[in-house]
């Protein structure tokens, strides 16, 4: 047996590169893809394509360059989409509460997922609710962006969700990145995305998983449909399913973000088209963001602890990022006072001088919906109930 095998082995051919000359651009199962020798390649592992495939940094940089050029030529940018709480909300069946029993009568067929939004995946013991407007969002976004899914869920979950969102496999083919594909467990990176970071936008509900790419990030308001989702984040309030309600399609987060994406896309391709030098989508995003509260001058009243340096507070920084200016004392140029209590000195000054007196939620709303929301919906009233769970923990 063995001697017969040796006869066939080790014939070098003209087709493969000699091991000494080969630059080993990448490896599959620890074998060089060009010459077949056993190698250790330092580079990027593309787990979304195959768990054993790895390509060297130089090769990846080359691809990123050609891919980005080709995508930009087609008047598209890149969009990386998170799944949980961004495009959908999932729950284990055992975490569902009795108030959610009615949902069992409203399940949509998986065969017809293009039209459905609530799915029961019995083989995974899970129920998934797609966020309202998601089908339209994906269809419209796909015309402006090359899209990737990047989730902290595992591969099996990621692929099932991709099937629900993209039944015809037209948006995410081989571009589904899951937890084990990345180099680091609790962080996300753009290593496996073939777009240059100056052309990538990210949609995610969690900021801290993108430590190196905060400038590319559009922060999504979390979608809490199931009771377990609210519990997971420690909120005492009821979820949408318990309230027998849902996010509005035309006024929800996805619709708002789609219009932001349209604006960024338009600015990038139409208005910056004549520009020499590399256009950067991060700068465009910043420009759009600074437009939201342009012209507002904001003073905060008893929203931060008194010894806290006001300029470092997240709410102050959020307002500044949105294009507003902030101050610590009132003056005639101030347009808004943000407070919880209408009885503070600054609050009374606002009411007396016909300035807007709004809750901190007004700034959060602007941050998530990218527009200056009507102040009438955020007026400070006396005996204001405890800050609702919707507000992120920026209010002290």
């Amino acid at each position, binding site marked *: 047996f063995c001697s017969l095998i040796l006869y066939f082995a080790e014939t070098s051919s003209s*087709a493969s590169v000699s091991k000494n000359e080969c630059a080993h*651009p990448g490896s599959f199962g620890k074998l060089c893809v060009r010459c*077949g020798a056993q190698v250790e390649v330092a580079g990027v592992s593309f787990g979304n394509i*195959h768990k054993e495939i790895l390509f060297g940094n130089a090769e990846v940089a080359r*691809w990123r360059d050609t891919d980005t050029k080709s995508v930009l030529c087609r008047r598209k940018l890149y969009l990386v989409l998170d799944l949980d709480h961004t495009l959908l909300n999932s729950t284990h069946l055992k975490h569902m509460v009795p108030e959610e029993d009615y949902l069992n009568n409203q399940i949509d067929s998986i065969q017809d997922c293009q039209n459905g939004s609530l799915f029961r995946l019995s083989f995974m013991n899970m129920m998934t609710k797609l966020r309202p407007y998601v089908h339209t969002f994906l269809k419209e976004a796909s015309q402006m962006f090359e899209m990737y899914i990047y989730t902290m869920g595992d591969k099996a979950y990621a692929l099932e969700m991709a099937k629900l969102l993209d039944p015809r496999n037209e948006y995410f083919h081989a571009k589904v990145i899951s937890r084990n594909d990345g180099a680091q467990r609790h962080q996300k990176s753009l290593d496996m995305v073939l777009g240059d970071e100056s052309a990538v936008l990210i949609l995610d509900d969690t900021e801290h998983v993108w430590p190196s790419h905060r400038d590319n990030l559009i922060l999504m308001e979390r979608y809490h449909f199931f009771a377990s989702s609210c519990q997971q984040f420690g909120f005492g309030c009821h979820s949408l399913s318990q309230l027998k309600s849902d996010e509005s399609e035309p006024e929800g987060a996805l619709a708002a973000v789609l219009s932001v994406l349209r604006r960024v896309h338009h600015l990038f391709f139409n208005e910056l088209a004549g520009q020499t030098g590399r256009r950067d989508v991060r700068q465009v995003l910043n420009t759009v963001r600074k437009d939201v509260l342009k012209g507002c001058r904001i003073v905060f009243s008893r929203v931060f602890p008194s010894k806290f340096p006001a300029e470092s507070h997240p709410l102050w920084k959020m307002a500044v990022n949105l294009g507003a200016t902030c101050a610590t004392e009132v003056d005639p140029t101030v347009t808004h006072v943000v407070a919880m209590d209408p009885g503070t000195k600054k609050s009374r000054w606002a009411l007396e001088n016909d300035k807007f007196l709004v809750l901190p939620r007004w700034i959060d709303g602007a941050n998530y919906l990218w527009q200056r929301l009507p102040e009438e919906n955020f007026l400070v009233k006396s005996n204001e109930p405890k800050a609702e769970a919707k507000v992120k923990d920026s209010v002290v």
Partner: protein
Amino acid sequence: MFFHIVLERNMQLHPRYFGRNLRDNLVSKLMKDVEGTCSGKHGFVVAITGIENVGKGLIRDGTGFVTFPVKYQCVVFRPFKGEILEAVVTMVNKMGFFAEAGPVQIFVSNHVKIQKDSEVRLKIIGTRVDATEIFCIGTIKDDFLGVINDPTTT
């Protein structure tokens, strides 16, 4: 390439399987343990075709288990460097394409007009076996290699 060879394995059997069905139990356990596994030396065990010999059982000290040396015939599959194989394309991307020939996954980094489910003739230029899988690198840049069949043609 496929081979029909004789392999030997020491099978441990729990006393509950003794009795008139001892040999059948031994054979079933062998099939369950061995079919579908991979080794560096023989490659992938596809199927057991027969039992050549079952040796005398040896009772192990301390437990009641008995070890039987079993000689069996089986079909194995092992790819070799330089071998020419026909495979089916499973995935195409900008880095090249993946193809499968039975239990073996082959990656070819040549670019060619190819699509999923095409049949392709390739040459293996490197192989590696780990516990459960065989990885191969292939090439189609040689005479008579390349796409044989498109999935669109029947």
